[in-house]
C-alpha cells in the first residue's frame, strides 16, 4: 500500500501527467490554448509507430514467446466479455437507456492506446521489461467489444444499424490498428538493424512527444467535460471509476493464467482497464446513431482516462509486480 502510494506520487509528478493536468486545467478555465488537429494527429502517428516498432524489434530480439497466440486469444476474449460486465454495472448504477448503456459498454471492452503507451513509458522508467508482443494484443482488443455491444442492443430489442461489410472494414482497418500492426511487423522484420537506423527518432524524444500529446489530451478531455455537466451523475461517475478496476482485475486474472511477466501483466491490466475514445465512438456514430456521444465520450475520456493515467497505472504496475514477483 505504502509502495502503491509512493509510486502513485512519483507517477503524478512526472512531466507527462503534469502536462495532462495543464491541458485539463486550461480547458476547464476556457483558455484558448489549442493543439492543432493535424499536429495532434501527427503526434499520435509518431507514438503508434514508435510503440509498434519497438514492440516488433523487441520480439525480433527475444524470439517469439509461445504465449503470443494465447495472449492474443485472452485479449480478444476480454474485449468480448467486458462489455457484458460494463452493461450490467451500468444498469445497476445508472438510468441510461439500453442503447446508451450498450454504447458505453463497447468503449470499455475496447482499449485506449494512449493509456497503453503511458503505461509502457512508466514501466520503462522503472526498468520493468514487458513482452514486446503486447502491442499486438492491444490491436486485437480494439474491435471485439463492438460486436458484443451490438449483440446486447439487439437482444434487448433495441434498434441498431447493424454491421455492414463497410463498417467491418472501417473498424478492422482503422488507422491505429493498421499502424500498430504494420509498424510491429516492420520492427520485427528489420530488428536491431532497423532500430539502429531510427533509434534516435523513436526512442530518445519519445517521452517529450508523449508530454505534448498528453497536453492535447488534457485539453480535449477538459473541453468535453465543460460541455457535459448534465452527463456526470453520481452513478455514471462511479461507473467510470469502478469499471476500470473491474477491467484491471479481469486483465490480472488473464495474465496470471498466461504466466506473463510483471510488465506484461501490468500492460494487459491497463488495456482491460482502459476505454476507447477514437475507434469505438466513430463506429457507434454509424452503428448506433441514437446513442448520445457525450455520454460515452465524457465517461471514457473525461473520467476513466484521467483515472487510469494518475491512479490506475501506478496501481496496476504495483499490483502486477507484487503478484508476479517482479
Amino acid at each position: 500500500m505504502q509502495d502503491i502510494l509512493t509510486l502513485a506520487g512519483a507517477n503524478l509528478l512526472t512531466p507527462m501527467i503534469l502536462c495532462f493536468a495543464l491541458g485539463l486545467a486550461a480547458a476547464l478555465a476556457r483558455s484558448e490554448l489549442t493543439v492543432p488537429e493535424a499536429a495532434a494527429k501527427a503526434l499520435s502517428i509518431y507514438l503508434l509507430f514508435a510503440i509498434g516498432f519497438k514492440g516488433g524489434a523487441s520480439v525480433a530480439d527475444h524470439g517469439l514467446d509461445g504465449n503470443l497466440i494465447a495472449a492474443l486469444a485472452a485479449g480478444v476474449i476480454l474485449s468480448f466479455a467486458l462489455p457484458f460486465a460494463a452493461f450490467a454495472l451500468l444498469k445497476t448504477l445508472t438510468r441510461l437507456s439500453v442503447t446508451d448503456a450498450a454504447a458505453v459498454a463497447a468503449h470499455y471492452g475496447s482499449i485506449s492506446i494512449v493509456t497503453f503507451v503511458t503505461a509502457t513509458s512508466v514501466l520503462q522508467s522503472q526498468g520493468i521489461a514487458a513482452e514486446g508482443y503486447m502491442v499486438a494484443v492491444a490491436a486485437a482488443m480494439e474491435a471485439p467489444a463492438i460486436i458484443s455491444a451490438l449483440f446486447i442492443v439487439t437482444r434487448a430489442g433495441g434498434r441498431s444499424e447493424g454491421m455492414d461489410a463497410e463498417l467491418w472494414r472501417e473498424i478492422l482497418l482503422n488507422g491505429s490498428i493498421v499502424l500498430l500492426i504494420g509498424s510491429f511487423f516492420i520492427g520485427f522484420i528489420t530488428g536491431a538493424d532497423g532500430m539502429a537506423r531510427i533509434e534516435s527518432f523513436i526512442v530518445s524524444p519519445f517521452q517529450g512527444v508523449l508530454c505534448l500529446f498528453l497536453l492535447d489530451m488534457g485539453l480535449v478531455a477538459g473541453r468535453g467535460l465543460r460541455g457535459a455537466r448534465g452527463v456526470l451523475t453520481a452513478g455514471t461517475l462511479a461507473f467510470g471509476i469502478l469499471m476500470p478496476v473491474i477491467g484491471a482485475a479481469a486483465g490480472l486474472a488473464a495474465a496470471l493464467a498466461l504466466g506473463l511477466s510483471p510488465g506484461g501483466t501490468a500492460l494487459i491490466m491497463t488495456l482491460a482497464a482502459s476505454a476507447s475514445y477514437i475507434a469505438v465512438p466513430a463506429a457507434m456514430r454509424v452503428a448506433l446513431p441514437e446513442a448520445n456521444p457525450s455520454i460515452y465520450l465524457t465517461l471514457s475520456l473525461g473520467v476513466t482516462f484521467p483515472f487510469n493515467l494518475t491512479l490506475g497505472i501506478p496501481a496496476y504496475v504495483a499490483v502486477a509486480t507484487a503478484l508476479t514477483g517482479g
Partner: protein
Amino acid sequence: MQTHQAKRVEIIIEAPMENRLTDALTRAGVTGFTVLPVLGGSGRSGRWSREGQVGRAGMVAVICLIRPDRLDALLDAAFAVVERHIGVVSVTDTQVLRAERF
C-alpha cells in the same frame, strides 16, 4: 452570360457518414458534388467543435448542384442515409453556367 436553372443542395452530415452519403449519391446517379470542411456547430444535439473531439470526426458539408428534375432522386438517396443521423439538408434555387456539365 447564359445561365440555367438548377438546385443547390447543401447537406451537413457527420464525417463518418460522408462516404456512405457520397456512395448513395453516386448510386442515385448524382456524380457532381463538393465536400467542404466544417469547424463546429450547434443543433438539437447540442454544440460541438472539432477541438472537443479526439478522433475529431466532426461534420462535413456536401454541396450538390443539380438539374431541377433530378432533385427528387437526390433527396431520396440522401434522406435514406441521413434519416437516423444528426444533420441538416437545405435546397436553394440557383443558376449555373455551362449547363451541359450537370
